[in-house]
């Protein structure tokens, strides 16, 4: 990508406007993300984030935008083994190979980074967690399937409040 070219994005999770459906703040999306990927629930594992409006009760969904130029993939010291790109151009993490260095997390252009890291005293447990669009799941992304108010879906447009910070 040239320096001044606008970044383009692949298909990713978007939150719809509230006059279509208001996020209930139930965190189901975070929960089903880790249940389907990891068989557990943990804020260190989810690949979609509810930016909680503790007092406003208006919540924003943050997730990987699947940047076409994939800076996270570019930063991975074990690219094509740990950080990989599949036939549909989805960038995903092969956790068996991930060494937990955190370079992909740092390379993410969004703030906060859309790549989560498992925090563990045991270095071997540290793994990057990145949205892979549930690429092997026939029903598609679990968060979209299970959101009780259908306020998230798929698009290639960026979310209005997503600001690239880096």
């Amino acid at each position, binding site marked *: 990508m040239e320096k001044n070219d606008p970044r383009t994005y692949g298909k990713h999770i978007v939150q*719809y406007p*509230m*006059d*279509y*459906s*208001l996020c*209930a*703040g*139930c*965190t*189901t999306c975070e*929960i*089903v993300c880790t*249940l389907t990927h990891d*068989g*557990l*629930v*943990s*804020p*260190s*594992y989810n690949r979609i984030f509810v*930016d*909680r409006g*503790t*007092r*406003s*009760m*208006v919540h924003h969904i943050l997730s990987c935008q699947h940047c076409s130029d994939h800076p996270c993939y570019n930063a991975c010291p074990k690219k094509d083994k740990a950080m990989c790109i599949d036939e549909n151009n989805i960038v995903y993490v092969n956790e068996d190979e991930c060494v937990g260095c955190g370079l992909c997390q740092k390379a993410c252009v969004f703030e906060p980074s859309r790549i989560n890291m498992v*925090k563990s005293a045991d270095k071997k447990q540290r793994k990057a967690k990145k949205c892979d669009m549930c690429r092997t799941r026939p029903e598609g992304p679990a968060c979209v399937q*299970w959101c*009780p*108010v*259908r*306020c998230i879906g798929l698009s290639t447009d960026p979310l209005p409040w997503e600001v690239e910070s880096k």
Partner: protein
Amino acid sequence: MSEMRYGYVGKIARINLTTSTVEMISTFDYVPEYIGGRLVCNKIFWDNVKPGTGALDPENMLIYMTGATTATGIPTGGRSVFTGISPNSFPEQYVWSGMGGWLGAELKFAGFDGFIIEGKAEKHTYIYIEDGKVELLPADDLWGLMVHPTQKKLEEKHGKDVKSMVIGPAGENLMRNATVTTSNDSVAAKGGFGAVFGSKNLKAITVRGHGVVRPYDIDKLFELRMKMANPTMRPCPVVREATHGMDGNMIPVEGGWLRGQVACSHGCNQHCNRLMMDMKSAFSDERINQVEKCVGIFAYGYQEDCSWSPIQNFETERNHFLPCKMLSMENPPPDFEDPYAPELFKQVRGDIVNFWKPDFDKGSVMMDMCNQYGIDKWDVIVWFMTWLSMCKQEGLLEDMDFGMEVDVENEEFVKYFLDMITYRKGKYGPIFAEGMARAIRTLGKEKFGDSIYHGRYSQMINKPLDLPVSLETAWGHSFHWQGRGFEGSIYKAGWVAHSLELMTSTRDIMTIAHFHDDYENFLKYRDDPYHSRELVDAVIFNENKAELKDSVTTCEWQSPDIYWPDMEAQMYEAATGIPTTQEDLDFASERSRLIFRAILIRNFGRTREMEVNAVFPALTIPDTFGEVATWEEWNDLVDLYYEVKDWDKETGWPTREVYEKYGLKYIADELEALGKLPQ
């Protein structure tokens, strides 16, 4: 039992604020025998808090517990519970208080199933918990702040992703109905535990966790997500409503108002909290969002009491829906093929009471003040404000100088009054900060509690009815679906059942024990609920379910589903992997209620005489149909209830055999030594 790795995370932190020490207790000292949540709290309280301890004494323990379902993604598992001695209960007694939000889940991610707070910090303090570590930190820069600024400051200090529970000025100033507030306007309110925080110099508890919670059966979990309360799984937009309120309190709102629906707690599959957006604030020109639940609607206008239909308590298999559907307005359409449908949906209109005319902005300001000062909205809306209105109309306040003319329809007066009581200002601030039950007795109960208000009119029998100026029921709480007072329009069988549940309790039970029964059962006791074994059995069923809601955990608005009686057992088993039947949970809740009863007997002198005298007077006020309970009827029902429970009819105390049947010999022994077992 540390090999058990599903549902629970394994530790309870016992935090002593006097000695600044933290002891780690294994959750598995208590579970699975005591399930979790309130059942564990009851056991801890029995073991640790001596008779004679007062609510605001350092020795009072606040016990906070999550359940095995919390943070698993099983719907409603995000609910959690506090217990301790309540300053708001009259007299002070052991109570529970539920709470939603995200903090319970976060605590589990931080490695704790719960915590116990005891002692008193020397200085203003807050507790910071992160990933297995508990720190006591100075709260000088937080003390004095209202609820939302406190939450905000804690996020500034520790990061936006922390979850906090905090008190506002009401708790700091030991107002007896002060709340502990977490996110989403979720509060532990009715216990007045905000004042217990204040008495311990504790401003807040802030939590961050990065750990893991493992549910046992993920397929089952997903099945429960689709089945529990039948989620609509469809978009739920923000809509502009043209009017606000219900029944006789409905008013047009100029320009309309924005309504959304949000969930109260982590992982729920419903969105029953009504979000009111862009509302008037009491404190600034900035517009605010706030949540309205059942009582909040009356802050805006209270000329007429709430209407009721039998379906809210008495259901059929073809027509039943859970309360979570009501505020989100997602009730399924009635099935009129059901022969009982016309009866089930017949509306009983609320009494005309004329407490205050609808005023949208004033209602919003009242709500905001309760949220920010950290005061229980129930006490403010249902009791303080109605009392002021009725006393004013009856000319009882003429000799009292509040420093401003009493006028509950004047926004400035509402602000003035709530400020006065929160900060204990002037002559009357300290009196009302003690809560209405105590304030009325200080002022003189005969005049300020029992005087009759003449503005009540029944729309069901078309005639005026008496109502005392104080809407007090029992245990320092106000009426709630009890046939008179707030949410009073309900058939006799409903208010008799609710009053029986209230009698053996220590606070308003309706946040966790709305009575539900099958309509055909109801037909058996509709005319004479006082001599009905069916009614007593249904009361016990609802009492046990209430215990489970705070323990498994689940929620008053999704449980019980009387046509799916083992729902809670399925939830518990999916979370923990422990094979569980409804009978197992019934046994556990009966045992928990026995421990609760034993606490009341040992620590607070509970007897039959005490509880009958606490509840009965309110039942002599006519209900919407002009009916009252007689002393004989009520005592016949109490006899029958005690008989079924195998409690002594004279004292109301359970027998040794009952305690032993539930594995509580140690409690029977202790009570016997104190002379508190029936002869």
